[in-house]
């Protein structure tokens, strides 16, 4: 906890970001979610080390761990946003920080901190895995950067849906259903696919495997599923009556 401040000074965004990061871990539900997420990384590394006969190096194990956590991890920022509404803490939060965009900016900072912590965890687990298996320490900085970007987009995808919906169950369900539905629509025909592929978040998956990343499609999908939802969520938040 940091030192007290002058009462007539607006709380710094970094301070608010620390508060939001704390909110991600200080409830029972959040703690269990983080434990499950960490366990999924541990499991991914263990499975790779114990059962995969193909020799894998440190870098590959890191990617596996990051992919494993990407399933549950978005629920953390989702609940950080929607919890304000489902638990009605918004009333207190926005009374303390009446400029509502600052709260959302602080939550984004917390999301980045979460990404940093998870990346460190996965690096540590991958190192441990390499030590146990005696596999190589091969590591590609570019691949690591790609998977971190994938993880960031995955987290922001959940964050954006949460920002628009402001409802925990709906946001969690859509977080899992949207990629499936978009994929199903794309599968209707090649013609449809050529259009839908521009807004298909599965374009981000190319960042985690050996397929060539289509950066233009990664960018348009990010515009559709990250930038637009967050912008719409901010507009809705500005206008909303908080009760």
């Amino acid at each position, binding site marked *: *906890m*940091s*030192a*007290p*401040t*002058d*009462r*007539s*000074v*607006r*709380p710094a965004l970094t*301070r*608010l970001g*620390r*508060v939001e990061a*704390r*909110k991600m871990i*200080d*409830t*029972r*539900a*959040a703690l269990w979610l983080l434990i499950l997420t960490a366990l999924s990384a541990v499991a991914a590394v263990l499975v790779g080390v114990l059962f995969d006969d193909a020799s894998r190096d440190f870098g590959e194990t890191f990617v596996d761990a990051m992919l494993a956590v990407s399933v549950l991890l978005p629920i953390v920022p989702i609940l950080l946003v929607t*919890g304000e509404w489902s*638990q*009605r*803490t*918004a*009333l*207190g939060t*926005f*009374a*303390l*920080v*009446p*400029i509502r965009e600052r709260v959302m900016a602080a939550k984004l900072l917390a999301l980045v901190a979460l990404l940093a912590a998870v990346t460190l965890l996965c690096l540590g687990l991958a190192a441990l895995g390499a030590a146990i298996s005696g596999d190589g320490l091969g590591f590609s900085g570019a691949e690591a950067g790609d998977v971190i970007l994938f993880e960031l987009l995955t987290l922001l995808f959940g964050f954006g849906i949460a920002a628009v919906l402001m409802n925990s169950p709906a946001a969690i369900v859509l977080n899992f259903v949207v990629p499936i539905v978009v994929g199903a629509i794309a599968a209707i025909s090649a013609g449809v696919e050529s259009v839908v592929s521009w807004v298909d978040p599965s374009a981000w998956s190319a960042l985690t495997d050996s397929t060539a990343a289509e950066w233009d499609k990664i960018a348009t999908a990010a515009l559709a599923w990250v930038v637009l939802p967050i912008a719409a969520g901010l507009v809705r938040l500005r*206008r*909303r*009556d*908080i*009760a």
Partner: protein
Amino acid sequence: MIEASGLTKRYGAQVAVQDLSFRCEPGTVTGFLGPNGAGKSTTLRMICGLTVRTAGQATVLGTDYRRIANPARHVGVMLDASAQHSGRRGRETLRLCAETIGADPGLVDEVLTLVGLDRAAARRRVGKYSLGMRQRLGLAHVLIGDPEVLILDEPANGLDPEGIIWMRELLRGFADRGGTVLLSSHLLNEVETLADQLLLISQGRLVASGSKQELLAGNGTLVRSPEPEVLARALAAAGIEVAATDGGLIAEADPEVVGRAALAGGAPLSELRPAEGAGLEQLFLSLTSAEQEQGS
């Protein structure tokens, strides 16, 4: 100081708050009274920038609440004690608040003790709290910023009689040190001993406001006689308006005027006193009865 002028909130065609203007001065406690659904919470939320105003202005300490750099260090706001994360421990919610507003974290335990939450209670998750404990935790949030103004929505809800007396003393002391207090209630007896100023609203409109004394003075005199017909004639002869109450009359005049009229009319009296308490209660009930009839 809190100032509202022309505060209005409409949801489509429905009017929640209509053209509300009032002022709360430093050193006073203002009781904001009205039945449930009268628009009290909406008004308080508009003052704090949580509910978007349809029209009107509100300032706290001369500034729009949303423009105060670090509002909780000047204005303690408790709008709903139940609005806390049920999975978070009591002490942790207060630590988050202290960290957000940059208050001294060393104050957390001190303030928890002040509001009567012991270590065991502070360690429990808020979901396990009674409403009274939530109110105490809410007051801790309000006090930790060391504010000059308090805005409290139904703070006595869920408190036991002992807790209400404790809160009354806390708020009285706060106002006596120069603070401004605005608190709402749907129960007259919760605020009538504490408040200096009263605002009564009904269906979103201000129906009465002023000091408690002023509102009481307007309520006349309770007068009883063993010969009620004689008394009624005597007061009618003196041109004093009366309303019947159980076994007596509420006369729209000072006790002295009523006494002289009774004497002139030869009516014996068994009771003559300012219609305090009961009068305010009647005022409250009459001002709000229309709404309650609608509701039933």
